[in-house]
């Protein structure tokens, strides 16, 4: 098994072997976070920059902790502190950052393809920390890691993803990752939030959430992407919550050992009821924990070794 990618731009570009390598590597890194001394020297002397043009707590912190646990130095730049407020273009910002010789730049941007643009011009490794409605590869990897950890397998599972599919990079990356496995993937949500050609990704669309969750092994809830105009696709949040909010009654229709996932941030009482979010089926906090391990694996694979 080998890894020869400079960048992690999307799940689309990964082979099944590469996906499994990330998961297995993450498995080894996960233990470090459980120790008293949560640090290994693997990336000593390396520098990781997180460049976030969209608000984020979880992902940015997760990357930062991942880098630090591997002994890399981290610098965080968010849109409020970057020169974008002074009118500098993304390319110029990235070129300037690269002059300071970082090893990896993790970028989050509202526009699809922004990381791809940087990857073409930078020698540093570029990690896509979410680009618009396109991809969020580390999220899909940590989701798959969590599924495998909790279920002991990936093949044969029914995974249901519910919510604003059209505007969700998490949904897209999960579709791309799950199609490598023998899984039944169903998406559900208001028809206005499900793109017409979604089935081309090997996903079944079922608008009726009650039908969609039937016999599910995994239910993944998404939030409404308000920042991408999600609200205008539904009459009201209240109606959305009635039709697509996950409640106990849905869980009863799923498999007995169903797990409930959410990439966060959650809107309690909208797409997920408290009783579910905090219930025994919820693995939402495990996802966050696994996120660190998966991002350690990604950083190690990208910059831990000479090309």
């Amino acid at each position, binding site marked *: 098994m080998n890894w020869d990618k400079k960048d992690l731009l999307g799940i689309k570009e990964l082979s099944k072997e590469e996906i499994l390598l990330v998961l297995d590597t993450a498995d080894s890194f996960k233990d470090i976070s459980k120790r008293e001394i949560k640090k290994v020297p693997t990336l000593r002397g390396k520098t990781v920059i997180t460049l976030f043009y969209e608000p984020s707590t979880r992902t940015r912190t997760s990357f930062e902790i991942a880098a630090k646990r591997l002994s890399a130095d981290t610098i965080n730049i968010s849109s409020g502190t970057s020169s974008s407020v002074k009118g500098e273009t993304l*390319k110029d910002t990235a070129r300037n950052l690269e002059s300071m010789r970082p090893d990896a730049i993790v970028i989050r941007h509202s526009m699809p393809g922004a990381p791809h643009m940087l990857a073409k011009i930078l020698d540093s490794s570029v990690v896509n920390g979410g680009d618009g409605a396109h*991809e969020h590869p580390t999220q899909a990897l940590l989701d798959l890691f969590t599924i495998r950890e909790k279920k002991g397998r990936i093949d044969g599972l029914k995974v249901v993803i519910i919510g604003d599919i059209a505007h969700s990079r998490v949904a897209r990356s999960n579709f791309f990752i799950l199609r490598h496995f023998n899984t039944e993937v169903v998406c559900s949500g208001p028809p206005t939030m499900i793109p017409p*050609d979604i089935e081309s990704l090997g996903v079944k669309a079922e608008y009726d959430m009650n039908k969609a969750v039937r016999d599910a092994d995994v239910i993944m809830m998404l939030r409404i992407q308000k920042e991408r105009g999600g609200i205008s696709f539904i009459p009201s949040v209240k109606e959305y919550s009635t039709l697509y909010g996950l409640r106990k009654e849905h869980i009863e229709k799923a498999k007995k050992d169903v797990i409930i996932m959410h990439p966060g941030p959650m809107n309690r009482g909208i797409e997920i009821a408290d009783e579910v979010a905090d219930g025994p089926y919820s693995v939402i906090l495990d996802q966050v924990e696994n996120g660190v391990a998966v991002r350690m694996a990604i950083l190690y694979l990208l910059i831990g070794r000479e090309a």
Partner: protein
Amino acid sequence: MKTLIKGGRLVDPGREIDAKLDILLNGNIVEKIDKNILDKGSGMRVIDAAGHIVAPGLIDVHAHLREPGYEYKETIRTGTMAAVKGGFTSVVCMANTDPVNDNKSVTEYIVKTARLEGACRVFPCGAISKGLKGEELSDIGEMCEAGIVALSDDGKSVKNAGLLRKAFEYSLLFRIPVISHCEDDNLSGGFVHEGLASVKSGLDAIPSIAEEVIVHRDIAVARYVNAPIHLTHISVQGSLEAIAAAKKGYGKITCDTCPHYFSLIDEATLGFDTNTKVNPPLRSRQDLDAVKEALRNNTIDIIATDHAPHEFTSKDVEFNLATFGISGLETAFALSLALVRDGVLTLKELLAKFTVNPARLLNIPYGTLAQGSAADLIIFNPAIEWTVDTEQFLSKGRNTPFRGWKLKGKNLLTIVDGKIVYRDPLFKKA
């Protein structure tokens, strides 16, 4: 001075000619077309066209020459130089300049600049509405006097159907066509075609119906007032079905498409190359096939370039922020020759869509070669292969998704009004 073009195969669809014929030019007029005209006069310039094809100069009904206002993207000078290199001898330039061509002083400026600096004939298209705002009619009559040949708010549709109706009605007085840019901006608002590729890329998308519904509406309005309508840069199957059906009952409909709609599909946008960002967007495989079929069955009458040159920096940004458009004058004809090789069209049928059909639409006396007609012609060779190198572009706009493509078929010589305005380095001087 007389010029004799000797030994070439003349293909002139306007006169149903496809034969080995010589052409004698006297100054800026075609004096004679005949078999084997002898080179007898002293001082006669002889151009050896043996092994090549001679055709009337191509006419582009849709280009953006950007002047006045956006000279950093293109000027009338650079745009027409690109045109003659690509085989065009007449170009219609759209009204979305700054200031907008919605009054006679702008029209006059364009006409005058083209006369002084242009490498080919330039025909301005006037704006339908003042400032392209879709609110009130522009000074159509005065612009016609100054030289516009068509009306269009190209870049957007006229949102107000009442105003559109007035434009169609008013156009009847001056016998100029209204050119419809078909896009419902309530359905639009994206950057790529809505379909398989946009599902993958997550880019905001433009569905095919954004074009289709306006095609229906504009045809209905034109038909109601019995005015001619030309629908430009048609890109989707639904539009073409609507046009084909409407043409059966109403004879005043014409339409064009552009080479990128039969050369590329939406998948090309998956790498986020901003040079693939164009409006209408690159469509699906099915749409591409429909465009080819419509070219074959003459639902599509004309091939236009929608030449939309841009400065490098406007494309060197995030996909969402990049400008729409392809610099097309220098690749359009070569890309279109593939239709002949693929058996979609005969060479004569293809040339009709570049010459006589646009001339008829615009009511201009070009696009065909007869005794007494203007000496606008090209010599090209459909077998010569070349690679698209944007460094060699004469247009200021280097924005093309065809960079690096190997194309077959090259324009070698362009004569406008009797003067050689372009000569390819491969085409040796006599």
